[in-house]
């Protein structure tokens, strides 16, 4: 969570500087700067995820060195999951909490002609992003562990795609549907990478021993 926060800080610094240095009345330029800010922020987030992976790797090595039987009390997969959840929670909290605070107060949604589904779609989008961050954490760390660069590239591309799809808002079908599809793909991929399989799933669902 802290690492995500730092990446957000740096990316907003860049955007802020760019906005201050540009003409505030030029609408297209502002929109362009915003798009640039979003993309840059996505890349920074992934970079920080990589840094966090490096830090956790060192921590695991330290734990292994200290432990009696040569294995650390927490595995890298668990750390990947926790890292993903941390990123997701922080990103979700930052996206939603002001919305929730405003939702408590009086008002009408979309009174100026905007979409009336604003709160609902924001909630769904945040949820899909939190899930995606969790899965991306697992995929990313797995890729780093086994030196499979294409997995890492796939995570970055997916993140860019999801953020880019939000540019279609308020045409929600253009942003929510692809995001959920990508989430399903990422979920199955992460599940398979973590050692799951169809048999495991069937055994779990049918409560077989």
């Amino acid at each position, binding site marked *: *969570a*802290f690492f995500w*926060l730092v990446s*957000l*800080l740096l*990316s*907003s*610094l860049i*955007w*802020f500087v760019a*906005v201050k240095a540009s003409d505030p009345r030029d609408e297209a330029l502002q929109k362009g700067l*915003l798009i640039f*800010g*979003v993309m840059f*922020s*996505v890349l920074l*987030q992934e970079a920080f995820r990589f840094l966090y992976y490096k830090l956790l790797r060192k921590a695991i090595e330290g*734990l292994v060195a*200290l*432990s*009696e039987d040569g294995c650390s*009390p927490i595995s890298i997969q668990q750390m990947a999951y926790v890292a993903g959840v941390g990123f997701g929670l*922080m*990103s979700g*909290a*930052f*996206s939603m*909490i*002001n*919305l929730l*605070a405003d939702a408590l107060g009086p008002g009408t949604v979309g009174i100026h002609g905007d979409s009336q589904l*604003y709160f609902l*779609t*924001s909630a769904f*989008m*945040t949820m899909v*992003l939190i899930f995606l961050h969790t899965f991306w954490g697992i995929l990313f760390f797995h890729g780093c562990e086994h030196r499979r660069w294409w997995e890492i590239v796939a995570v970055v591309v997916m993140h860019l795609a*999801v*953020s880019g799809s*939000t*540019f279609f*808002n*308020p045409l929600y079908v253009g942003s929510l549907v692809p995001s959920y599809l990508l989430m399903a793909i990422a979920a199955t991929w992460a599940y398979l990478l973590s050692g799951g399989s169809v048999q495991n799933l069937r055994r779990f669902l049918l409560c077989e021993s």
Partner: protein
Amino acid sequence: MITFMNNSDSEEEPCNERTSLMSAESPPVPSYQDGLQASEAGEAQAHRKRRTGSSRSPNNIADGDTSDSGVPVRESVLENEEEELTLKYGAKHVIMLFVPVTLCMIVVVATIKSVRFYTEKNGQLIYTPFSEDTPSVGQRLLNSVLNTIIMISVIVVMTVFLVLLYKYRCYKFIHGWLILSSLMLLFLFTYIYLGEVLKTYNVAMDYPTLFLVIWNFGAVGMICIHWKGPLQLQQAYLIMISALMALVFIKYLPEWSAWVILGAISIYDLMAVLCPKGPLRMLVETAQERNEPIFPALIYSSAMMWTVGMAKPDTASRGPSQQTWDAAEDGRENHRSPLHADSQMSETRSPVPTRPTTSFEELEEEERGVKLGLGDFIFYSVLVGKAAATASGDWNTTLACFVAILIGLCLTLLLLAVFKKALPALPISITFGLVFYFSTDNLVRPFMDTLAFHQLYI
């Protein structure tokens, strides 16, 4: 880190703990953890032998007739085991500290956001005489710096006064001071707080009920903090008085002064704990010389009370009394925080002051508790509360400060495990918190607002 504390039953631990954390200021309890660490480190050596003797005897017997060359190897293996145990319990201690700090912050933020009283400007404390209602920015800055200087010098004077009192064995005076300050905190401030909360929610309460509630709350609080009581109740009371103190600070400190004071007090904490002539360090050393626990008054501890149920009756009987004595002192100091700086000193509480012969095996698992000075609680909550109060109604800033403070606390505990000596708990967290507050308020907020407006997600 803290685990060592339990192993070393000496009284030195409390001394160590306190000195590290106690920064002169009354409210903040700098880093008692530091003290704990230091004491633990010192104890560790002595205790390691004993502990390995007692708890590891089965292993040793199994090793049986090892040759002399095997002995140093075994010792190093045991050292490794101890280090690993330290790390494992260190992580547990981090969690044990996260919960009370989070609870305190939640109480403060919830109150700030709902009760309007604590964000209204109704005058200032006499410790910050310069007003900030000046027309020019430079004048305002100057006034806030002057306010900070006055506040910090008050704190330094208080701390030095406390060290002198302790040096010349004026224990009754210190006790009385602490009891008076916790009385004021538990009764007067609670009355004001309850009044404001009832006003906000438009709930009517008659005076007899109010009297009953406040009397019970205060009396049980005094008993819990200064004498014996269930551990969780004591922890809850300590959290509540820290939150009350933080709310008072948030209300009565002017804006810029509050930020400058937060910065200055973390620098002061750093100096008071680490410099050889620092008051807190002198306090700890004096306590160590006399082999008695330092004022436990202002320390939050997470695993003390179970010693009452300890096997050894002598230690059990001594433990609670020492603890309660410590608790009382801490309580006072905390209350006195705006008035004096000594509270920081009383931060360390020795959970198990002395235990010459103890069954280590039983104690090993339960004794591991962690202590944090109440002043630290207060200043963390002041930072987060000020962020909630003055950040243009933005929750992102509050959340960012909260995460920053927790990460700072984590890092401090890590450093404690690495250095094994008293370290101040304020600087890292407050620095992170300040950096994140200002950057989130000025940089992240416009970015996130624009993103939310267009419903873009990053």
